[in-house]
């Protein structure tokens, strides 16, 4: 009834938050949840929207950081790759 809906929504929220940690977009989140948790994208999308309404500031900042990361990622990634190369050449990677 209401409880199961609430807990379901809570679960979806939890999953969305995990995706947020991964800096995923809403679409990526919908896809991931549908694929890995069998959650209908429309549900993910709705919960995401409602979360956004309740946490406007967070999502605004999230969107900003997302755009920044998109810009920076290439630069950062190449830097990281270079570092990886130098790291592996300098010492044994402990895997």
């Amino acid at each position, binding site marked *: 009834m209401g409880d199961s*809906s609430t807990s379901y929504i809570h679960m979806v929220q939890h999953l969305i938050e995990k995706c947020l940690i991964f800096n995923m977009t809403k679409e990526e989140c919908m896809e991931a949840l549908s694929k890995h948790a069998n959650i209908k994208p429309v549900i993910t999308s709705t919960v995401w929207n409602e979360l956004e309404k309740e946490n406007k500031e967070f999502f605004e900042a999230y969107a900003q950081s997302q755009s920044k990361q998109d810009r920076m990622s290439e630069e950062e990634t190449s830097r990281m790759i270079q570092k990886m190369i130098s790291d592996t050449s300098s010492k044994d990677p402990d895997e």
Partner: protein
Amino acid sequence: MLAVSPLRNNTSKDDDEGEMESTFTISSDEFPDFADGNLLESIDFDDLFLSIDVDGDVLPDLELDPEILAVLPPAGEESEMNASGEKTEESDNQRKDEEENKVSTSKGDEETVSKREEPKAVKTGSKDGDKGRKSSIKGKSNNNNQGTRKVKVDWTPELHRRFVQAVEQLGVDKAVPSRILELMGIDCLTRHNIASHLQKYRSHRKHLLAREAEAASWIHRRQIYGSATPVGGGGKRDVNHWLPPTMGFPPSASPMHHQNHLFRPLHVWGHPTMDQSLMHLWPKHLAPPPPPPRPAWGPPPPADPSFWHHQHHRVPNGQTPGTPCFPPPLTAAPTRFGAVPVPGIPPHHAMYKADTGIGVPASQLRRHPLVDLHPSKESIDAAIGDVLSKPWLPLPIGLKPPSTDGVLVELQRQGVPKIPPSCA
């Protein structure tokens, strides 16, 4: 009438009387009733002090100055005025004879003085003076009007810079207005100007420092946990506990009000809000024990919100640097935020990756934190699996949950009758 006639007499004696007379006429109109005890109210002090202009705090031409100045300070003003009022009747003759007896015939003399000084200012300045006068008489008001003794100082950037220099030379807490005045060496400033400016400056500084400290503490915390996490990620029993109960996204509780402002600027500096909210997480992780695992999915949700809300309120206190929850290094660096974004990002990613990427070697992550900008399918799958299998776990970010009804209504609009759906 007591005042009026002597005034007229006085003016007749003065050279500038012509103007003064007109002034007095005006003044007399404005002095409706001296018979009452409300001398102060009825006295139009703007006339009295019109001679005091912005540039000069005194009436250099008048010998009366010191006495007037003595009378003017609000504390003593009323009594002085009253005293003078009382004497007015008696000293009619005196007034005629001596303009210098301002104290005793303050009304008349002051008017005389002011008239002498700048008769034309009387009319023009009357409004300002009126405000200034009344307010200063009522009770020491600040130097906001030009008509009062306290000259309005224009704090130009240059002037302020000198002020700041002087203050810092003396030490902000030890800076005393009189010494500042000395150090600045500007004639036009009075000690009172400096004092009020100092007060504003101090409160402004405090505000800035508080904000900086808050932000610095968060950034430090994040860095600390960012470096600590990979170590913990491998060794801890349950990786997910590194994302402990959060107080969640900054609540709008009033204690957080100040800190709320902090979040916005910090966003600008390239830190997703997420960082900050996650920052909240980690310290909290240290203090409270994680909630015990609960088999049923039902009970936890109702209990958890209250639990988290409780922490919700705790966090505002926890945010203050120096609280026991937070590691000491927080106070070490009043970092400039410009430096933060770049170093900040790697630890952020490293941390999360270590936490959620069970299959990913922590060491690798530590070294190549940015690799997970595009998270791998495995890590996502692992994270999702975690949530599904352990529903009791606290929300990693702890966003404010949407209203169930809102969601249900919206879903029904979209054609989803109920959740959980029978089939995905």
